[in-house]
């Protein structure tokens, strides 16, 4: 079988911009962790689809705004994570929980902005939705319900697990030289761990490719439902949550005594939220890693890696070093994936051969059927 993914989908700036417009500015995207916003004025900042965003806690109400001051376009919150009022550091304009301008110092003497004019000014706000402790943002002016993007069992499993997330979070970023789609094609490919991760992940977990003949056959047909609701319904199939494999040798680690456990199965869990968030739990419910792939250019993707355990039963002094050992452990696997994907990206060129797919790649085939329909037509979601 030939893949539908022409190399231009990974190389073209024009297609990258179309993706941003037709996918990333329409769908619900991972925005951050609620556990990082524990109190009044806690905030996180990020850049999503090129838009600086601040997500801030106002007395328990969490809101998302464009992080750009209405006065001189300065960033309002400048740190990645912190706790301070939503006040611009440039000229101290202060904003309230609805994005309104609460105070302009020396407004009457220096600005001569009337009260009525000030009342009309408001930061651009974006829709925010929390599933447990995972925050999703939608940049569209008319966001569709998140339930049209994620299946009930995905929402339920994400909510249940993320409600157990601990508030101590380790975070770093890798700057990758590949297209974001390669990461998710790789994640859906259960046949690669035994080759790419044979000295790391594959020693603890056995991932085996399987063929769903019905889906494999379906993927060969053109997509029939191309209305916005039809395309959304199809997209809903691309997110998943499941215990994917049994742990071969579940190990008891010292930190297990200090944290609660989510679930009771010695399994490897995966959550994949299309288009760009992946969560894994490789130890049967004691800790989680969250990978967020941020597309920057056709051949550049930032990969944010979060690590956190389940909730602590009590504080323990070595908790940050415990997270670091998790980070180092996963860096090996992440590094192996990054290396292989950068090699794939480096080999791409406009006349590169179309990839040949196996039947086990039926999930990727369904995604690319949807993706190419969206990219190559005027259809919208």
């Amino acid at each position: 079988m030939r893949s539908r993914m022409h190399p231009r989908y990974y190389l073209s700036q024009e297609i990258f911009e179309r993706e941003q417009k037709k996918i990333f500015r329409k769908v619900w995207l991972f925005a951050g962790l609620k556990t990082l916003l524990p109190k009044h004025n806690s905030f996180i900042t990020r850049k999503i689809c090129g838009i600086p965003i601040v997500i801030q806690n106002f007395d328990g109400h969490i809101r998302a705004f464009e992080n750009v001051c209405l006065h001189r376009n300065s960033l309002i919150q400048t740190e990645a994570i912190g706790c301070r009022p939503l006040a611009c550091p440039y000229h101290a304009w202060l904003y309230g929980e609805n994005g309104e301008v609460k105070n302009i110092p020396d407004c009457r003497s220096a600005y001569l902005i009337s009260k009525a004019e000030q009342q009309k000014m408001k930061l651009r706000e974006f829709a925010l939705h929390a599933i447990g402790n995972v925050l999703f943002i939608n940049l569209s002016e008319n966001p569709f319900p998140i339930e049209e993007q994620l299946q009930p069992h995905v929402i339920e499993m994400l909510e249940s697990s993320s409600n157990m997330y601990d508030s101590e979070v380790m975070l770093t970023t890798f700057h990758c030289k590949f297209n974001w789609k390669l990461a998710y094609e790789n994640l859906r490919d259960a046949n690669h761990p035994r080759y790419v991760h044979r000295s790391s992940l594959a020693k603890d977990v056995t991932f085996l490719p399987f063929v769903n003949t019905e889906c494999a056959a379906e993927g060969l047909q053109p997509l029939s439902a191309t209305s916005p609701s039809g395309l959304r319904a199809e997209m809903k199939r691309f997110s998943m949550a499941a215990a994917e494999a049994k742990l071969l040798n579940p190990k008891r680690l010292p930190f297990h005594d200090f944290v609660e456990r989510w679930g009771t199965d010695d399994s490897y869990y995966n959550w994949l939220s299309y288009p760009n968030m992946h969560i894994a739990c490789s130890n049967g419910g004691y800790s989680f890693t969250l990978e967020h792939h941020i597309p920057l250019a056709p051949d550049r993707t930032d990969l944010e890696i979060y690590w956190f355990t389940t909730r602590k039963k009590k504080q323990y002094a070595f908790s940050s070093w415990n997270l670091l050992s998790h980070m180092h452990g996963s860096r090996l696997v992440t590094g192996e994936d990054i290396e292989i994907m950068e090699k794939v990206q480096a080999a791409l060129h406009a006349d590169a051969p179309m990839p040949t797919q196996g039947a086990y790649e039926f999930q990727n085939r369904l995604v690319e059927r949807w993706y190419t329909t969206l990219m190559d037509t005027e259809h919208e979601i």
Partner: protein
Amino acid sequence: MKSRWVVGGGVCLDQVYDTWGRTYPQDSVQRIELVPGDDYTFDLGALDALDPAQGAMFVALDERFGNFKRMELMQAVMERGFRLESFVSPSAIVPTNTIIGPNAFIGEGTVLGTGCRVDFNAVVRDGVRLGAGAHLRSSCWLETGVLVGDGADIGAHCILRMGAIVAPRVKIGKHCELGWARLYDRDVAARTIFDTRYPEPICVYGD
């Protein structure tokens, strides 16, 4: 005859054992290898035959797990009643007004500025230079070649790798790892990790 027990593993164990053997020929210096097993715990059986009243001990172990394994072993021997000594290499330059805590390690050729303070269980490997009034808090690990400026404050459990230079009066929060060979001329928030295998610092938020 007084006993001196050097307990743990790694290069510091060998160094203390060797130096104490030469420095205290009148004492019985014993080397006891004690490293964590596959289950990450110590088997302390080798200490059962020792009488804490007969001598002093030094716990030498590397920086694994943010120096917590060395601290864990140190606490375990203290609970058994052993008295801990610090180790100061004869070739180190240590002003008389330096304060050095129990089980601290001051390696060969280190130069400590006047008024320095090295808290318990901190390890200052060979050739490190500490500026005047610098403060190393407990269970730090400073590798060979690290430079710490006057009045700098290094938080508990920090690891400073080769080539790290901390500017005068800079405060490094606890549980940091300064692994990028560079000048750190601004305060570093607690639990920040600079590791050469990562392109960006690793940060920890919340608690």
